[in-house]
């Protein structure tokens, strides 16, 4: 039976292992056919920034192509593509404004904590993954 899960994220990209763990949970739920709502709060609004770019690695001497460095926006985009209609992603608008993070990938929406409240009311479970 399909369930709806709402997840609040706070961590920015490239800082903690939390983001990878959260993405694994999101992908696992979507893979099983569940619906997932993500409310990105504070630094997590940077996860979907469209201007993220892979870079070379001067320690290993690899080019950007050889390094094939992941970006969180590509991970989110891959989940939008693989599970159409199953993932909703809202970035906190005030958090976006204070970071100048308004240029986001297709599918990520601008919203407010009110959206998180409404999703929580309508979801089977809500998981908060805060920054530490």
């Amino acid at each position, binding site marked *: 039976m399909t369930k709806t899960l709402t997840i609040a994220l706070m961590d920015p990209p*490239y800082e903690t292992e939390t983001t990878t763990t959260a993405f694994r949970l999101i992908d696992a739920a979507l893979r099983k056919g569940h619906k997932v709502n993500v409310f990105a709060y504070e630094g997590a609004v940077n996860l979907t920034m469209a201007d993220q770019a892979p870079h070379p690695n001067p320690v290993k001497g690899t080019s950007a192509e050889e390094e094939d460095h992941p970006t969180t926006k590509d991970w989110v985009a891959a989940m939008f593509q693989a599970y159409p209609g199953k993932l909703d992603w809202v970035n906190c608008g005030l958090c976006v404004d204070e970071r100048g993070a308004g240029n986001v990938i297709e599918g990520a929406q601008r919203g407010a904590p009110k959206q998180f409240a409404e999703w929580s009311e309508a979801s089977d479970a809500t998981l908060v993954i805060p920054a530490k």
Partner: protein
Amino acid sequence: MAKKVLSIVESAYRATVEEQDDTILWMNHILKNAGLDITLVLRSNAVNYAVKGQDASGLTFGKLKVSHPPKLDKDLESLLEAGVPVYYVREDAEERGIPQKQLIDGIKAVSAKELPSMLDGFDSIWHW
């Protein structure tokens, strides 16, 4: 003469899958290449970086595979090859049940008791 820097890495596994490495090990390698005299100490959870044969492969989001998972043991070996002495705090490994034989070759143990006198041999101590 280059300043002697002791770089102590304590916080481990910070975005290592996203970065495909540990950003602090990476920066220490860059700083060594830039001419700094760096020595590395792994303590607390970071002692696990020295365990041989770690495998973080197989992760996929949607249909997008993570093509280059982190290889932290190999990154430490690369630091050793670059001339960076690498130590780990013996008690921190023992508390975690990590025996010496599971660690990469070339890494040296330092006991918690020996660590304060070790600090005296450096101009700067950086605690990450």
